[in-house]
């Protein structure tokens, strides 16, 4: 186990978390934010998909387009002492980001509102290709730049972005590159170039969340290849929802082959106060066999993940779902494994 005092990404201030739909990337982003916010560090958790997932996970009112303090960071029992920092959240809406952007860089007051009347804001935020992504990533850039010398707005030690899913992540992060190509000069070109420089810098990593199933693992491999192609920095792979590891290798083999001694199991059950009829013993052994089969498939996928040659972290499947308490448990797991 790595030493929890030396995390794997010491210089990174922008953690971008992506993953195939349904693998739990928002959960992982939230847990990572809590983990990063231990020891006095302040972290900003951003969402860009308009789902209000952060508000639901942290059990707070729906978030406005405004940085809000939502939680206290993880206090890690195994790490050195110290007060945990705070987690802030920002729900980035493209429309508000556009107006903010216009007033910040161009001082467009009346004209900004007129744009809205003409359907320009709608065009920019819902229809125009990539403009939405440009605005969302522009806001991330603005927040990330505050960590430098310029003293505008609250400064954060790290930013975690709950990003679009793996299938769209390269497009999302690369949109400024394409924009810089289309706008050959002028303010847009400069802004786009700056954002790409940040995304490709050593300050940034893109983590990918997967589960140990064929399609998500394949998509993760494809995603990593695409990110590398666009020279975007690949971080770690977080393997989510790993099945319980209660049976060891020998027991799994026995469960699969059906060589577990049924009389012994029945005797154990009776000794523990459970009325062990044949039906119950058979049911337990069937569950054991199915579990062993799935574990074998998981192991095959785990090998593929290991072959991706990036840092990997594992989080357990939580049968009762993920509530706020569970987020802290997952955060502690990530911290112990050195992700934060």
């Amino acid at each position, binding site marked *: 186990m790595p030493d929890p005092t030396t995390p794997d990404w010491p210089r990174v201030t922008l953690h971008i978390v992506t993953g195939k739909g349904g693998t739990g990337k928002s959960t992982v982003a939230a847990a990572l934010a809590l983990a990063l916010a231990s020891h006095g560090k302040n972290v900003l958790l951003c969402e860009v998909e308009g789902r209000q997932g952060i508000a639901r996970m942290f059990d707070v009112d729906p978030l406005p387009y405004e940085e809000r303090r939502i939680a206290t960071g993880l206090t890690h029992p195994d790490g050195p002492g110290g007060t945990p920092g705070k987690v802030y959240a920002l729900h980035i809406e493209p429309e508000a980001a556009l107006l903010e952007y216009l007033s910040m860089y161009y001082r467009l007051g*009346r*004209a900004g509102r*007129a*744009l809205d009347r003409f359907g320009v804001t709608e065009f920019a935020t*819902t229809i125009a290709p990539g403009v939405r992504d440009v605005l969302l990533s522009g806001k991330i850039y603005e927040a990330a730049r505050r960590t430098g010398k310029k003293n505008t707005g609250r400064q954060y030690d790290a930013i975690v972005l709950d990003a679009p899913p793996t299938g769209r992540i390269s497009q999302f992060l690369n949109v400024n590159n394409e924009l810089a190509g*289309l706008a050959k000069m002028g303010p847009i070109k400069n802004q786009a170039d700056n954002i790409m420089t940040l995304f490709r810098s050593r300050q940034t990593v893109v983590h990918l969340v997967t589960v140990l199933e064929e399609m998500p693992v394949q998509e993760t491999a494809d995603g990593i290849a695409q990110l590398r192609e666009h020279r975007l920095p690949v971080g770690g792979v977080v393997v989510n929802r790993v099945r319980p590891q*209660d049976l060891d290798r020998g027991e799994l083999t026995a469960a699969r082959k059906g060589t577990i001694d049924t009389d012994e199991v029945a005797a154990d059950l009776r000794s523990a*106060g459970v009325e062990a009829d044949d039906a119950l013993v058979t049911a337990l052994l069937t*569950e054991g066999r199915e579990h062993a089969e799935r574990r074998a498939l998981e192991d095959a996928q785990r090998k593929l993940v290991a072959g991706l040659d990036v840092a990997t972290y594992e989080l357990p499947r939580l*049968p009762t779902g993920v509530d706020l308490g569970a987020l802290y448990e997952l955060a502690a797991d990530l911290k112990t494994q050195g992700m934060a």
Partner: protein
Amino acid sequence: MRPAPRKTRTRVGPLASSGVQAPRLDIDALLDDPGTGIIVCCGSGGVGKTTTSAALALRAAERGRKVVVLTIDPARRLAQSMGIEELDNTPRPVAKVRKAGGGSLDAMMLDMKRTFDEVVASGASPEKAAQILQNPFYIALSSSFAGTQEYMAMEKLGQIHRQAEEDGSYDLIVVDTPPSRSALDFLDAPERLSSFLDGRFIRLLLAPARGPARLMTAGLSVITGALSKVLGAQFLRDMQTFVAALDTLFGGFRARAEKTFALLQADGTAFLVVAAPEPDALREAAYFVERLGEDRMPLAGLIVNRAGPTPTGALSADEAMAAGARLRGRDPDSLTAGLLRLHADQSRLVEREALLRRRFAAAHPEVATAVVPALSTDVHDLAGLRRIGDLLAGG
């Protein structure tokens, strides 16, 4: 002293006894009904829409329907097994479909860029089409316009439907929807795109290209001023050229989008909402169900994929945990304790999933539901699709 064996019992309580149970979705009745002409599978990303669409199409074909399935982004091996790994935007027959019932199955994978190009080519004169297809803006933007995927899926659906009406090539079209941010995008995006294309902003961009500035009001000059300040004059000019080039196509876009929308509202269409037994996926499904109602779109039912297999042993999770802990206290490596923990874990998972489904059913009691248990392997051949089909039909 050994504790006396206790009688195990199933858990009863307010949750277990609440009687809300969704009506069962009869998949075979839906597939066999000759009145069902279009089935649209929608839902949030990662819930198994593509596999479900393919499984439904195969089952319908093997029950005697002449089926075409339109998929968006199938897993590579599934695409290979259906013979559609090549993107050529034309339905191809799927080999090894059982034809005893007189049915057939074609499949195609939608190529966004190509469909867009086809629309341009069919809607503009050859010179104009060539001009548009070579415009750098068009090349960069045509496949990434938000809503393009949804729009093009509808466009292709309309095309195939018209063709099927004419030559009788198909009597059932199964459509998989794009992996959108929200399932609602499938319904909203085409309308958004076409209303935009008819909107003021487009007229604004076209105004200078059309010569006399009859729209040149005071407000307008503020706008163009603001735009060129933000975008740069050159950027704005390029964009205007692009928009002007596309202008001729816009009327056609809108008319066809409206036609396809009407097709979706017709009686022959059936929407199936696909979800996983997770809070987010079911919430999306609920939004979608409500939205279909508002738009008078015919909803056939809900498919809940990847449900955990229900443990058969009549032992509650808590009892299993307690017994496991007792065994572990005596022997930390007890195999039986491990089995009991697994049983508890599985029971809790299934209990939670059942609770989520009951809540959905309580809010939407009219929605017929089919629950498909999780398979231990991914589906990448026809045999796997058949198995999913059996499970969908309740077998």
